[in-house]
Protein backbone atom coordinates (compact mmCIF):
# COMPACT_ATOMS: atom_id res chain seq x y z
CA UNK A 1 0.00 0.00 0.00
CA UNK A 2 2.83 2.39 0.90
CA UNK A 3 4.52 1.68 -2.43
CA UNK A 4 1.27 2.30 -4.29
CA UNK A 5 0.74 5.63 -2.55
CA UNK A 6 4.37 6.60 -3.06
CA UNK A 7 3.92 5.97 -6.80
CA UNK A 8 0.75 8.06 -6.70
CA UNK A 9 2.72 10.92 -5.06
CA UNK A 10 5.25 10.63 -7.87
CA UNK A 11 2.48 10.68 -10.46
CA UNK A 12 0.89 13.79 -8.90
CA UNK A 13 4.22 15.62 -8.88
CA UNK A 14 4.91 14.61 -12.50
CA UNK A 15 1.53 15.82 -13.69
CA UNK A 16 1.80 18.99 -11.60
CA UNK A 17 5.19 19.95 -13.00
CA UNK A 18 4.07 19.06 -16.54
CA UNK A 19 1.05 21.36 -16.22
CA UNK A 20 3.14 24.18 -14.72
CA UNK A 21 5.35 24.07 -17.78
CA UNK A 22 2.37 24.44 -20.17
CA UNK A 23 2.21 28.21 -19.54
CA UNK A 24 -1.52 28.85 -19.56
CA UNK A 25 -3.14 30.32 -16.43
CA UNK A 26 -5.66 27.49 -15.92
CA UNK A 27 -2.98 24.84 -16.21
CA UNK A 28 -0.80 26.79 -13.77
CA UNK A 29 -3.53 26.65 -11.13
CA UNK A 30 -4.36 22.98 -11.69
CA UNK A 31 -0.65 22.16 -11.66
CA UNK A 32 -0.21 23.91 -8.32
CA UNK A 33 -3.23 22.03 -6.95
CA UNK A 34 -1.78 18.68 -8.03
CA UNK A 35 1.61 19.55 -6.51
CA UNK A 36 -0.13 20.54 -3.27
CA UNK A 37 -2.06 17.28 -3.15
CA UNK A 38 1.12 15.36 -3.89
CA UNK A 39 2.92 17.05 -0.98
CA UNK A 40 -0.03 16.42 1.36
CA UNK A 41 -0.19 12.76 0.40
CA UNK A 42 3.58 12.45 0.86
CA UNK A 43 3.32 13.83 4.41
CA UNK A 44 0.52 11.38 5.11
CA UNK A 45 2.41 8.37 3.74
CA UNK A 46 5.78 9.18 5.28
CA UNK A 47 4.16 9.31 8.73
CA UNK A 48 3.51 5.58 8.37
CA UNK A 49 0.30 3.85 7.31
CA UNK A 50 -1.76 1.87 9.82
CA UNK A 51 -5.04 0.29 8.75
CA UNK A 52 -8.03 -0.13 11.01
CA UNK A 53 -6.32 0.89 14.25
CA UNK A 54 -7.72 4.28 15.34
CA UNK A 55 -5.66 5.99 18.05
CA UNK A 56 -8.40 5.66 20.65
CA UNK A 57 -7.70 4.95 24.30
CA UNK A 58 -9.61 2.02 25.76
CA UNK A 59 -11.79 2.66 28.82
CA UNK A 60 -9.29 1.36 31.42
CA UNK A 61 -6.01 2.08 29.63
CA UNK A 62 -3.96 5.30 30.00
CA UNK A 63 -2.56 5.40 26.49
CA UNK A 64 -3.58 4.06 23.06
CA UNK A 65 -2.52 0.60 21.98
CA UNK A 66 1.07 0.36 20.75
CA UNK A 67 0.06 -0.55 17.18
CA UNK A 68 -2.52 2.26 16.83
CA UNK A 69 -2.24 4.78 14.01
CA UNK A 70 -0.25 7.97 14.64
CA UNK A 71 -2.74 10.86 14.65
CA UNK A 72 -0.13 13.61 14.19
CA UNK A 73 0.51 13.23 10.41
CA UNK A 74 -3.26 13.35 9.90
CA UNK A 75 -3.50 16.56 11.91
CA UNK A 76 -0.60 18.01 9.89
CA UNK A 77 -2.19 17.06 6.58
CA UNK A 78 -5.55 18.46 7.66
CA UNK A 79 -3.88 21.80 8.46
CA UNK A 80 -1.93 21.74 5.22
CA UNK A 81 -5.08 20.99 3.18
CA UNK A 82 -6.90 23.97 4.70
CA UNK A 83 -3.94 26.29 4.09
CA UNK A 84 -3.51 24.92 0.57
CA UNK A 85 -7.18 25.50 -0.18
CA UNK A 86 -6.95 29.15 0.89
CA UNK A 87 -3.77 29.75 -1.09
CA UNK A 88 -5.20 28.12 -4.22
CA UNK A 89 -8.39 30.17 -3.88
CA UNK A 90 -6.31 33.35 -3.77
CA UNK A 91 -4.12 32.16 -6.65
CA UNK A 92 -7.14 31.29 -8.81
CA UNK A 93 -8.76 34.69 -8.27
CA UNK A 94 -5.47 36.44 -8.91
CA UNK A 95 -4.73 34.54 -12.09
CA UNK A 96 -8.25 35.11 -13.37
CA UNK A 97 -7.86 38.86 -12.72
CA UNK A 98 -4.49 39.07 -14.47
CA UNK A 99 -5.98 37.21 -17.40
CA UNK A 100 -8.63 39.92 -17.61
CA UNK A 101 -5.80 42.51 -17.54
CA UNK A 102 -3.96 40.86 -20.37
CA UNK A 103 -6.66 39.32 -22.53
CA UNK A 104 -4.07 36.68 -23.33
CA UNK A 105 -3.93 33.00 -22.54
CA UNK A 106 -0.14 32.81 -22.37
CA UNK A 107 1.77 33.39 -19.12
CA UNK A 108 4.80 34.45 -21.17
CA UNK A 109 2.90 37.60 -22.11
CA UNK A 110 3.21 38.82 -18.52
CA UNK A 111 6.41 40.78 -18.86
CA UNK A 112 5.57 44.18 -17.43
CA UNK A 113 7.39 43.59 -14.17
CA UNK A 114 10.17 41.44 -15.60
CA UNK A 115 13.72 42.61 -15.71
Amino acid at each position, binding site marked *: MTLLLALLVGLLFTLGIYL*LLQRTPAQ*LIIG*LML*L*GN*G*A*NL*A*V*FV*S*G*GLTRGQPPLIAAEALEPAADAADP*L*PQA*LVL*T*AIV*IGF*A*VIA*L*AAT*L*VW*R*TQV*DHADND*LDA*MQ*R*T*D*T
Partner: protein
Amino acid sequence: MNLWHGIQDGLVAMPLVIPLLGMGLSLMFWKQPRARQTVGVAASLLLLAVAVSLLRMVSEQGITAMRLGSWASPVGILMEVDTLSALMLTLTAIMALVAVVFSGAGNDPEDRHRPLMPLLMVVLLGVNGAFLTRDLFNLYVWFEVLLMGSFGLLILTGGREGREAAVKSLTLNLIGSLVFLLAVGVTYGLAGTLDMADLQIKLAQVHAERPAAVTATAFLLLMAFAAKAAMFPFHFWLPASYHVPTAGVCALFAALLTKVGVYSLLRLFTLPFAVVQGWETVVGLVAGLTMLIGVFGAVTQFDMKRILAWHSISQIGYMAVGLALLAAPAAEVRLAGVTATIFFVLHHGLVKPALFLIAGLVESLNGSTNLKKTGGLYLAKPILAVVFLLAALSLAGIPPLSGFWAKLAVIQASVSAGAGWLVAAALGAGLLTLLSMVKIWNEVFWKPASGTPLPTARRVGRAGWVATFALVLLITVIGLQPQLLFDLSENAAAQVLADRARIVGILKVGP
Protein backbone atom coordinates in the same frame (compact mmCIF):
# COMPACT_ATOMS: atom_id res chain seq x y z
CA MET B 1 7.00 33.21 41.58
CA ASN B 2 4.13 31.75 39.60
CA LEU B 3 2.84 35.21 38.83
CA TRP B 4 6.30 36.18 37.53
CA HIS B 5 6.35 33.13 35.26
CA GLY B 6 2.90 34.06 34.06
CA ILE B 7 4.08 37.54 33.11
CA GLN B 8 7.13 36.12 31.34
CA ASP B 9 5.00 33.67 29.37
CA GLY B 10 2.62 36.49 28.52
CA LEU B 11 5.47 38.67 27.28
CA VAL B 12 6.68 35.89 24.95
CA ALA B 13 3.16 35.64 23.51
CA MET B 14 2.80 39.42 23.01
CA PRO B 15 4.57 39.61 19.60
CA LEU B 16 1.74 37.37 18.34
CA VAL B 17 -1.13 38.85 20.34
CA ILE B 18 -0.48 42.49 19.39
CA PRO B 19 -0.59 42.06 15.57
CA LEU B 20 -3.63 39.78 15.93
CA LEU B 21 -5.49 42.41 17.95
CA GLY B 22 -4.23 45.14 15.61
CA MET B 23 -5.61 43.21 12.64
CA GLY B 24 -9.02 42.79 14.25
CA LEU B 25 -9.25 46.39 15.41
CA SER B 26 -8.14 47.88 12.11
CA LEU B 27 -10.71 45.72 10.31
CA MET B 28 -13.39 47.21 12.55
CA PHE B 29 -12.46 50.72 11.37
CA TRP B 30 -13.17 49.88 7.72
CA LYS B 31 -14.34 53.37 6.82
CA GLN B 32 -12.10 55.41 9.12
CA PRO B 33 -8.58 55.47 7.65
CA ARG B 34 -7.33 57.77 10.41
CA ALA B 35 -8.47 55.36 13.15
CA ARG B 36 -6.85 52.47 11.25
CA GLN B 37 -3.63 54.43 11.15
CA THR B 38 -3.79 55.10 14.91
CA VAL B 39 -4.28 51.38 15.56
CA GLY B 40 -1.27 50.59 13.36
CA VAL B 41 1.02 53.11 15.06
CA ALA B 42 -0.11 51.98 18.52
CA ALA B 43 0.43 48.30 17.65
CA SER B 44 3.93 48.97 16.26
CA LEU B 45 4.92 51.04 19.30
CA LEU B 46 3.66 48.29 21.63
CA LEU B 47 5.55 45.69 19.57
CA LEU B 48 8.72 47.76 19.88
CA ALA B 49 8.30 48.07 23.66
CA VAL B 50 7.70 44.31 23.99
CA ALA B 51 10.66 43.44 21.74
CA VAL B 52 13.05 45.68 23.66
CA SER B 53 11.90 44.31 27.03
CA LEU B 54 12.29 40.75 25.68
CA LEU B 55 15.81 41.66 24.56
CA ARG B 56 16.60 42.95 28.06
CA MET B 57 15.01 39.94 29.69
CA VAL B 58 16.98 37.50 27.53
CA SER B 59 20.30 39.23 28.16
CA GLU B 60 19.63 39.24 31.92
CA GLN B 61 18.09 35.80 32.42
CA GLY B 62 19.04 33.77 29.36
CA ILE B 63 16.63 31.98 27.03
CA THR B 64 12.96 32.33 27.91
CA ALA B 65 10.30 30.01 26.59
CA MET B 66 6.56 29.54 26.56
CA ARG B 67 4.88 26.17 26.10
CA LEU B 68 1.57 26.43 24.28
CA GLY B 69 -1.11 24.81 26.44
CA SER B 70 1.61 24.00 29.04
CA TRP B 71 2.50 20.78 27.21
CA ALA B 72 6.08 19.66 27.85
CA SER B 73 8.56 20.42 25.10
CA PRO B 74 8.67 17.53 22.59
CA VAL B 75 4.89 17.06 22.72
CA GLY B 76 3.70 20.65 22.79
CA ILE B 77 4.80 23.54 20.59
CA LEU B 78 7.58 25.61 22.09
CA MET B 79 7.70 29.39 21.63
CA GLU B 80 11.16 30.48 22.64
CA VAL B 81 13.02 33.78 22.80
CA ASP B 82 16.80 33.82 22.67
CA THR B 83 18.99 36.80 21.77
CA LEU B 84 18.64 36.11 18.03
CA SER B 85 14.84 35.94 18.22
CA ALA B 86 14.71 39.07 20.36
CA LEU B 87 16.96 40.97 17.93
CA MET B 88 14.82 39.91 14.96
CA LEU B 89 11.63 40.88 16.82
CA THR B 90 13.15 44.31 17.52
CA LEU B 91 14.06 44.76 13.84
CA THR B 92 10.51 43.75 12.88
CA ALA B 93 8.98 46.23 15.31
CA ILE B 94 11.20 49.12 14.15
CA MET B 95 10.42 48.43 10.50
CA ALA B 96 6.71 47.99 11.25
CA LEU B 97 6.63 51.43 12.85
CA VAL B 98 8.50 53.02 9.94
CA ALA B 99 6.34 51.27 7.32
CA VAL B 100 3.07 52.16 9.07
CA VAL B 101 4.03 55.82 9.47
CA PHE B 102 5.28 56.06 5.90
CA SER B 103 2.28 54.26 4.34
CA GLY B 104 -0.17 56.38 6.30
CA ALA B 105 1.56 59.58 5.27
CA GLY B 106 0.30 59.47 1.70
CA ASN B 107 -2.26 61.93 0.41
CA ASP B 108 -3.51 59.35 -2.04
CA PRO B 109 -7.31 59.49 -1.92
CA GLU B 110 -7.40 55.88 -3.08
CA ASP B 111 -5.74 54.78 0.16
CA ARG B 112 -8.86 55.01 2.25
CA HIS B 113 -10.43 52.20 0.25
CA ARG B 114 -7.46 49.93 0.66
CA PRO B 115 -7.39 47.94 3.88
CA LEU B 116 -3.59 47.93 4.08
CA MET B 117 -3.36 47.93 7.86
CA PRO B 118 -5.01 44.52 8.52
CA LEU B 119 -2.75 42.89 5.91
CA LEU B 120 0.31 44.63 7.32
CA MET B 121 -0.59 43.17 10.71
CA VAL B 122 -0.95 39.70 9.12
CA VAL B 123 2.60 40.00 7.74
CA LEU B 124 3.89 41.05 11.18
CA LEU B 125 2.04 38.14 12.81
CA GLY B 126 3.61 35.63 10.44
CA VAL B 127 7.10 37.09 10.75
CA ASN B 128 6.99 37.24 14.55
CA GLY B 129 5.60 33.70 14.73
CA ALA B 130 8.42 32.41 12.52
CA PHE B 131 10.97 34.09 14.81
CA LEU B 132 9.46 32.60 17.97
CA THR B 133 8.50 29.03 17.11
CA ARG B 134 10.77 26.03 17.64
CA ASP B 135 8.48 23.57 15.85
CA LEU B 136 9.05 22.68 12.22
CA PHE B 137 5.40 22.40 11.15
CA ASN B 138 4.50 25.52 13.09
CA LEU B 139 7.22 27.34 11.14
CA TYR B 140 5.52 26.22 7.90
CA VAL B 141 2.20 27.65 9.12
CA TRP B 142 3.78 31.03 10.03
CA PHE B 143 5.43 31.15 6.62
CA GLU B 144 2.05 30.69 4.93
CA VAL B 145 0.56 33.42 7.14
CA LEU B 146 3.23 35.95 6.21
CA LEU B 147 3.09 35.00 2.53
CA MET B 148 -0.69 35.45 2.34
CA GLY B 149 -0.35 38.88 3.97
CA SER B 150 2.44 39.90 1.62
CA PHE B 151 0.53 38.80 -1.51
CA GLY B 152 -2.41 40.86 -0.31
CA LEU B 153 -0.25 43.94 0.13
CA LEU B 154 1.39 43.43 -3.25
CA ILE B 155 -1.97 43.11 -5.02
CA LEU B 156 -3.59 46.05 -3.24
CA THR B 157 -0.80 48.59 -3.65
CA GLY B 158 0.62 47.58 -7.02
CA GLY B 159 -2.37 47.94 -9.32
CA ARG B 160 -2.04 46.01 -12.56
CA GLU B 161 1.69 45.50 -12.11
CA GLY B 162 1.05 44.35 -8.56
CA ARG B 163 -1.29 41.59 -9.69
CA GLU B 164 1.17 40.42 -12.28
CA ALA B 165 4.05 40.47 -9.79
CA ALA B 166 1.88 38.60 -7.29
CA VAL B 167 1.28 35.77 -9.77
CA LYS B 168 5.04 35.30 -10.16
CA SER B 169 5.93 35.62 -6.51
CA LEU B 170 2.98 33.45 -5.45
CA THR B 171 3.84 30.64 -7.85
CA LEU B 172 7.50 30.43 -6.84
CA ASN B 173 6.83 30.87 -3.12
CA LEU B 174 4.05 28.28 -3.23
CA ILE B 175 6.39 25.74 -4.81
CA GLY B 176 8.92 26.58 -2.08
CA SER B 177 6.25 26.02 0.57
CA LEU B 178 5.27 22.66 -0.92
CA VAL B 179 8.88 21.49 -0.86
CA PHE B 180 9.09 22.68 2.75
CA LEU B 181 5.90 20.76 3.63
CA LEU B 182 7.25 17.65 1.93
CA ALA B 183 10.48 17.91 3.94
CA VAL B 184 8.50 18.38 7.18
CA GLY B 185 6.55 15.19 6.44
CA VAL B 186 9.68 13.19 5.67
CA THR B 187 11.38 14.56 8.80
CA TYR B 188 8.46 13.39 10.92
CA GLY B 189 8.55 10.01 9.22
CA LEU B 190 12.28 9.67 10.00
CA ALA B 191 12.43 11.04 13.53
CA GLY B 192 8.88 10.93 14.88
CA THR B 193 9.08 14.48 16.24
CA LEU B 194 9.03 18.04 14.93
CA ASP B 195 10.38 19.93 17.95
CA MET B 196 13.71 21.39 16.85
CA ALA B 197 15.73 20.56 19.98
CA ASP B 198 14.25 17.06 20.13
CA LEU B 199 14.99 16.65 16.41
CA GLN B 200 18.65 17.42 17.03
CA ILE B 201 18.93 14.32 19.23
CA LYS B 202 16.65 12.05 17.19
CA LEU B 203 18.04 13.02 13.78
CA ALA B 204 21.59 12.35 15.01
CA GLN B 205 20.48 8.80 15.84
CA VAL B 206 18.67 8.35 12.52
CA HIS B 207 21.65 9.85 10.67
CA ALA B 208 23.93 7.15 12.10
CA GLU B 209 21.75 4.48 10.45
CA ARG B 210 20.34 6.20 7.35
CA PRO B 211 22.58 9.16 6.45
CA ALA B 212 21.21 9.41 2.90
CA ALA B 213 17.61 9.96 4.03
CA VAL B 214 18.53 12.71 6.50
CA THR B 215 20.83 14.42 3.99
CA ALA B 216 18.14 14.35 1.29
CA THR B 217 15.64 15.94 3.70
CA ALA B 218 18.16 18.61 4.65
CA PHE B 219 18.65 19.49 0.99
CA LEU B 220 14.89 19.69 0.44
CA LEU B 221 14.74 22.22 3.27
CA LEU B 222 17.74 24.08 1.86
CA MET B 223 15.91 24.36 -1.48
CA ALA B 224 12.69 25.55 0.16
CA PHE B 225 14.39 28.30 2.15
CA ALA B 226 16.70 29.27 -0.69
CA ALA B 227 13.50 29.96 -2.67
CA LYS B 228 12.07 32.04 0.19
CA ALA B 229 15.34 33.91 0.77
CA ALA B 230 15.72 34.54 -3.00
CA MET B 231 19.09 32.78 -3.26
CA PHE B 232 20.66 32.19 -6.63
CA PRO B 233 18.80 29.60 -8.67
CA PHE B 234 15.45 30.57 -7.07
CA HIS B 235 15.77 34.37 -7.03
CA PHE B 236 13.48 35.22 -9.97
CA TRP B 237 10.43 36.21 -7.95
CA LEU B 238 12.20 39.00 -6.08
CA PRO B 239 13.22 41.40 -8.90
CA ALA B 240 9.81 40.77 -10.51
CA SER B 241 7.91 41.93 -7.44
CA TYR B 242 9.88 44.17 -5.07
CA HIS B 243 9.78 47.30 -7.20
CA VAL B 244 6.01 47.22 -7.64
CA PRO B 245 4.26 48.09 -4.33
CA THR B 246 4.25 51.51 -2.66
CA ALA B 247 7.43 52.48 -0.85
CA GLY B 248 6.19 51.76 2.68
CA VAL B 249 5.14 48.22 1.77
CA CYS B 250 8.34 47.78 -0.24
CA ALA B 251 10.39 48.73 2.82
CA LEU B 252 8.59 46.17 4.96
CA PHE B 253 9.18 43.45 2.34
CA ALA B 254 12.85 44.33 1.94
CA ALA B 255 13.34 44.34 5.71
CA LEU B 256 11.60 41.09 6.56
CA LEU B 257 10.59 38.61 3.83
CA THR B 258 13.94 37.27 2.71
CA LYS B 259 15.38 37.63 6.22
CA VAL B 260 12.91 35.08 7.56
CA GLY B 261 14.33 32.61 5.02
CA VAL B 262 17.92 33.28 6.11
CA TYR B 263 16.88 33.12 9.77
CA SER B 264 15.18 29.74 9.23
CA LEU B 265 18.25 28.32 7.47
CA LEU B 266 20.39 29.48 10.39
CA ARG B 267 18.05 27.81 12.91
CA LEU B 268 17.58 24.57 11.00
CA PHE B 269 21.22 23.94 10.21
CA THR B 270 22.51 24.75 13.68
CA LEU B 271 19.74 22.86 15.49
CA PRO B 272 17.87 19.94 13.86
CA PHE B 273 20.11 19.33 10.87
CA ALA B 274 23.46 20.17 12.48
CA VAL B 275 24.50 16.56 11.93
CA VAL B 276 24.26 16.74 8.12
CA GLN B 277 27.58 17.14 6.29
CA GLY B 278 28.33 18.68 2.93
CA TRP B 279 25.52 21.20 2.60
CA GLU B 280 27.89 24.01 3.58
CA THR B 281 29.87 23.55 0.36
CA VAL B 282 26.67 23.98 -1.63
CA VAL B 283 25.67 27.02 0.42
CA GLY B 284 29.12 28.55 -0.10
CA LEU B 285 28.78 28.13 -3.86
CA VAL B 286 25.22 29.50 -3.81
CA ALA B 287 26.30 32.43 -1.61
CA GLY B 288 29.05 33.49 -4.01
CA LEU B 289 26.82 33.15 -7.07
CA THR B 290 23.95 34.98 -5.35
CA MET B 291 26.24 37.94 -4.55
CA LEU B 292 27.48 38.16 -8.13
CA ILE B 293 24.17 37.51 -9.97
CA GLY B 294 22.51 40.16 -7.79
CA VAL B 295 25.01 42.92 -8.60
CA PHE B 296 25.23 42.00 -12.28
CA GLY B 297 21.45 42.15 -12.49
CA ALA B 298 21.50 45.55 -10.81
CA VAL B 299 24.09 46.98 -13.19
CA THR B 300 21.81 46.36 -16.19
CA GLN B 301 18.83 48.17 -14.64
CA PHE B 302 17.86 51.78 -15.15
CA ASP B 303 15.18 52.20 -12.51
CA MET B 304 16.02 53.12 -8.91
CA LYS B 305 13.64 50.59 -7.33
CA ARG B 306 14.66 47.77 -9.66
CA ILE B 307 18.34 48.41 -8.93
CA LEU B 308 17.59 48.22 -5.21
CA ALA B 309 15.58 45.00 -5.65
CA TRP B 310 18.49 43.30 -7.45
CA HIS B 311 20.87 44.44 -4.72
CA SER B 312 18.62 42.72 -2.17
CA ILE B 313 19.54 39.42 -3.84
CA SER B 314 23.22 40.21 -3.77
CA GLN B 315 23.08 41.05 -0.06
CA ILE B 316 21.41 37.71 0.71
CA GLY B 317 24.61 36.15 -0.64
CA TYR B 318 26.65 37.97 2.02
CA MET B 319 24.32 36.65 4.71
CA ALA B 320 24.69 33.10 3.40
CA VAL B 321 28.49 33.26 3.73
CA GLY B 322 28.18 32.86 7.50
CA LEU B 323 26.11 29.72 6.95
CA ALA B 324 28.74 28.28 4.62
CA LEU B 325 31.36 28.76 7.33
CA LEU B 326 29.47 26.41 9.68
CA ALA B 327 31.56 23.62 8.16
CA ALA B 328 34.77 25.15 9.54
CA PRO B 329 36.53 22.89 12.05
CA ALA B 330 37.53 25.76 14.35
CA ALA B 331 34.82 26.95 16.75
CA GLU B 332 35.99 30.59 16.55
CA VAL B 333 35.48 30.62 12.78
CA ARG B 334 31.96 29.22 13.12
CA LEU B 335 31.20 31.84 15.77
CA ALA B 336 32.64 34.61 13.59
CA GLY B 337 30.63 33.39 10.59
CA VAL B 338 27.28 33.27 12.40
CA THR B 339 27.99 36.61 14.11
CA ALA B 340 28.66 38.13 10.69
CA THR B 341 25.42 36.69 9.30
CA ILE B 342 23.33 38.05 12.19
CA PHE B 343 24.99 41.48 12.09
CA PHE B 344 24.52 41.61 8.31
CA VAL B 345 20.84 40.66 8.57
CA LEU B 346 20.24 43.46 11.09
CA HIS B 347 22.24 46.03 9.10
CA HIS B 348 20.56 45.15 5.81
CA GLY B 349 17.14 45.02 7.45
CA LEU B 350 17.53 48.73 8.22
CA VAL B 351 19.53 50.05 5.25
CA LYS B 352 17.64 48.49 2.33
CA PRO B 353 14.22 49.67 3.58
CA ALA B 354 15.68 53.15 4.06
CA LEU B 355 16.79 53.18 0.41
CA PHE B 356 13.37 51.97 -0.76
CA LEU B 357 11.75 54.75 1.28
CA ILE B 358 14.08 57.30 -0.33
CA ALA B 359 13.03 55.87 -3.70
CA GLY B 360 9.46 56.48 -2.58
CA LEU B 361 10.28 60.11 -1.76
CA VAL B 362 11.96 60.50 -5.15
CA GLU B 363 8.85 59.08 -6.79
CA SER B 364 6.70 61.47 -4.81
CA LEU B 365 8.80 64.45 -5.98
CA ASN B 366 9.49 63.38 -9.54
CA GLY B 367 6.60 61.13 -10.47
CA SER B 368 8.97 58.34 -11.48
CA THR B 369 11.94 56.35 -10.28
CA ASN B 370 13.16 55.74 -13.82
CA LEU B 371 16.65 57.20 -13.86
CA LYS B 372 16.06 58.79 -17.27
CA LYS B 373 13.10 60.80 -16.00
CA THR B 374 14.71 62.07 -12.78
CA GLY B 375 17.40 64.58 -11.93
CA GLY B 376 18.25 67.81 -10.18
CA LEU B 377 17.26 66.68 -6.71
CA TYR B 378 20.61 67.73 -5.22
CA LEU B 379 19.66 71.36 -5.84
CA ALA B 380 15.98 70.95 -5.02
CA LYS B 381 16.30 68.79 -1.88
CA PRO B 382 19.89 68.89 -0.58
CA ILE B 383 19.03 67.20 2.74
CA LEU B 384 17.40 64.27 0.92
CA ALA B 385 20.55 63.98 -1.19
CA VAL B 386 22.74 63.75 1.91
CA VAL B 387 20.39 61.21 3.49
CA PHE B 388 20.50 59.09 0.33
CA LEU B 389 24.28 59.30 0.27
CA LEU B 390 24.51 58.06 3.87
CA ALA B 391 22.20 55.09 3.22
CA ALA B 392 23.74 54.24 -0.17
CA LEU B 393 27.34 54.38 1.06
CA SER B 394 26.32 52.24 4.01
CA LEU B 395 24.89 49.64 1.61
CA ALA B 396 28.09 49.72 -0.44
CA GLY B 397 30.17 49.30 2.71
CA ILE B 398 32.05 52.58 3.02
CA PRO B 399 33.49 53.30 6.50
CA PRO B 400 32.38 54.39 9.02
CA LEU B 401 28.81 53.35 8.16
CA SER B 402 27.06 50.17 9.30
CA GLY B 403 27.59 48.34 5.99
CA PHE B 404 31.34 48.63 6.40
CA TRP B 405 31.29 46.77 9.72
CA ALA B 406 28.87 44.17 8.36
CA LYS B 407 31.04 43.47 5.31
CA LEU B 408 34.21 43.58 7.40
CA ALA B 409 32.75 40.89 9.66
CA VAL B 410 31.79 38.71 6.68
CA ILE B 411 35.18 39.10 4.99
CA GLN B 412 37.17 38.60 8.20
CA ALA B 413 35.27 35.39 8.91
CA SER B 414 35.86 34.15 5.34
CA VAL B 415 39.58 34.98 5.55
CA SER B 416 39.96 33.09 8.82
CA ALA B 417 38.19 30.11 7.23
CA GLY B 418 40.52 30.32 4.23
CA ALA B 419 37.61 30.71 1.80
CA GLY B 420 39.54 32.90 -0.63
CA TRP B 421 37.05 32.95 -3.49
CA LEU B 422 34.22 34.02 -1.16
CA VAL B 423 36.39 36.98 -0.13
CA ALA B 424 36.96 37.80 -3.80
CA ALA B 425 33.25 37.52 -4.59
CA ALA B 426 32.33 39.71 -1.61
CA LEU B 427 34.84 42.41 -2.57
CA GLY B 428 33.84 42.32 -6.24
CA ALA B 429 30.15 42.53 -5.38
CA GLY B 430 30.92 45.43 -3.00
CA LEU B 431 32.64 47.35 -5.79
CA LEU B 432 29.73 46.83 -8.18
CA THR B 433 27.31 47.88 -5.43
CA LEU B 434 29.21 51.14 -5.14
CA LEU B 435 28.99 51.53 -8.92
CA SER B 436 25.20 51.15 -8.86
CA MET B 437 24.83 53.58 -5.97
CA VAL B 438 26.98 56.14 -7.79
CA LYS B 439 24.79 55.62 -10.87
CA ILE B 440 21.67 56.44 -8.85
CA TRP B 441 23.43 59.45 -7.28
CA ASN B 442 24.48 60.81 -10.67
CA GLU B 443 21.14 60.30 -12.38
CA VAL B 444 18.70 61.20 -9.61
CA PHE B 445 20.55 63.87 -7.66
CA TRP B 446 23.50 65.29 -9.57
CA LYS B 447 22.47 65.71 -13.23
CA PRO B 448 20.22 68.69 -14.10
CA ALA B 449 16.47 68.18 -13.80
CA SER B 450 14.91 66.70 -16.92
CA GLY B 451 11.79 68.70 -17.60
CA THR B 452 8.76 69.01 -15.38
CA PRO B 453 7.93 66.32 -12.82
CA LEU B 454 5.38 63.75 -13.95
CA PRO B 455 2.08 63.63 -12.09
CA THR B 456 1.96 60.87 -9.48
CA ALA B 457 -0.62 59.33 -7.21
CA ARG B 458 2.07 58.28 -4.77
CA ARG B 459 2.52 61.47 -2.78
CA VAL B 460 4.27 61.23 0.57
CA GLY B 461 3.29 63.48 3.48
CA ARG B 462 5.55 65.05 6.10
CA ALA B 463 5.44 62.03 8.43
CA GLY B 464 6.95 59.89 5.67
CA TRP B 465 9.92 62.25 5.37
CA VAL B 466 10.43 62.22 9.14
CA ALA B 467 10.26 58.39 9.28
CA THR B 468 12.86 58.05 6.50
CA PHE B 469 15.25 60.56 8.05
CA ALA B 470 14.89 58.92 11.48
CA LEU B 471 15.73 55.51 9.99
CA VAL B 472 18.85 56.87 8.28
CA LEU B 473 19.85 58.56 11.54
CA LEU B 474 19.58 55.19 13.29
CA ILE B 475 21.79 53.60 10.60
CA THR B 476 24.38 56.34 11.00
CA VAL B 477 24.41 55.93 14.78
CA ILE B 478 24.90 52.16 14.37
CA GLY B 479 27.77 52.87 11.96
CA LEU B 480 29.47 55.18 14.46
CA GLN B 481 28.81 52.92 17.46
CA PRO B 482 28.77 49.36 16.06
CA GLN B 483 30.09 47.72 19.22
CA LEU B 484 26.75 47.37 21.03
CA LEU B 485 25.01 45.71 18.10
CA PHE B 486 28.08 43.61 17.33
CA ASP B 487 28.22 42.34 20.93
CA LEU B 488 24.53 41.48 20.78
CA SER B 489 25.05 39.62 17.48
CA GLU B 490 27.99 37.71 18.93
CA ASN B 491 25.96 36.84 22.01
CA ALA B 492 23.13 35.63 19.76
CA ALA B 493 25.56 33.59 17.64
CA ALA B 494 27.08 31.97 20.73
CA GLN B 495 23.59 30.98 21.91
CA VAL B 496 22.66 29.62 18.48
CA LEU B 497 25.84 27.52 18.32
CA ALA B 498 25.75 26.27 21.92
CA ASP B 499 24.59 22.77 22.71
CA ARG B 500 20.95 23.66 22.40
CA ALA B 501 19.40 20.34 23.26
CA ARG B 502 20.96 20.55 26.70
CA ILE B 503 19.81 24.12 27.31
CA VAL B 504 16.27 23.32 26.29
CA GLY B 505 16.45 20.18 28.45
CA ILE B 506 17.20 22.34 31.48
CA LEU B 507 14.32 24.64 30.62
CA LYS B 508 11.88 21.77 30.32
CA VAL B 509 9.35 21.48 33.13
CA GLY B 510 7.19 18.43 33.80
CA PRO B 511 3.68 18.15 32.37
